[in-house]
């Protein structure tokens, strides 16, 4: 329980938000991809965030009823595909058109992706600010005994 674990908490959030930004970038890059290695159009990917529980040592204190431990940040437990139906566009001359003449395009809404990207960027900046404040606090503490 010190300021150093504050850095790890914020660091975990930086990693998670960066992964989210990469996922969004991948979605935007593949907005018109009709063919993937696994067959079918590209499916939108979403990261799943989970809050990391407090460290084990805190559970001992918690069981004694003293206090509830501090969570250890956030982690990405996986990247799932959006199960929504793909967009269907009538293009009979497209090489990937089905027998009914419809091509299936990915179910990605650019505007929604942009909003998610902004949200991820702001969260990243907020965590960087938290790290800077932690650093400032440690420097003030190191100044205590200085002549």
């Amino acid at each position, binding site marked *: *329980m*010190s*300021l150093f*674990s*504050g850095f790890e*908490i*914020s660091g*975990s*959030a930086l990693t*998670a*938000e960066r992964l*989210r930004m990469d996922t969004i970038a991948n979605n935007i890059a593949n907005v018109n991809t009709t063919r993937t290695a696994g067959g079918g159009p590209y499916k939108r990917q979403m990261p799943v*965030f*989970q*809050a990391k529980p407090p460290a084990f040592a805190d559970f001992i204190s918690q069981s004694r009823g*003293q*206090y*509830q*431990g*501090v*969570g*250890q*940040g*956030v982690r990405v437990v996986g990247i799932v595909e959006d199960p929504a139906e793909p967009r269907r566009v009538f293009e009979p001359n497209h090489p990937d058109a089905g027998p009914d003449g419809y091509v299936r395009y990915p179910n990605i809404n650019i505007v929604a992706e942009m909003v998610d990207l902004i*949200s*991820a960027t*702001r*969260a990243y900046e*907020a*965590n960087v*600010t*938290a790290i800077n*404040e*932690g650093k*400032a*606090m440690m420097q*003030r*503490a190191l*100044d*205590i*005994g*200085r002549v």
Partner: protein
Amino acid sequence: MDNLFFDPTIKILHRSMDASALSHEVISNNIANVNTPEFKRSEVSFKDQLQKALTGTPDLQGQRTHPSHIPIGGSPSLDEIKPVIFRESETTMRNDGNNVDIDAEMVKLSQNSLEYGALSQLIRQKITMIRNAIIGR
């Protein structure tokens, strides 16, 4: 000699700094989980307990006739208080169950950082006073 180094001022400042460092950790965790669904924010409570320990306003205090009687009520001493982490599980900020208000958290972060700086400054001044008394300036 004990009063030189272990007087209540240093003890109070030390414990307040501990609470402030824990508060920084808790606020960092809240900010880290701003986009996590179903996450509920936590916060640290210490000032009330410090107030009770300092002003010593007892509620109803049980009478103890033997040292091993369990204390009932009364105010804790400075050595017994510690910061407590509360989870605010009743409110919701967004549709996914997350209740972290990023603006409020950033404000709390700055306030806490300034408080920590002020406390460290107070400890420095206290040590400077002791040093001046020793040197005799």
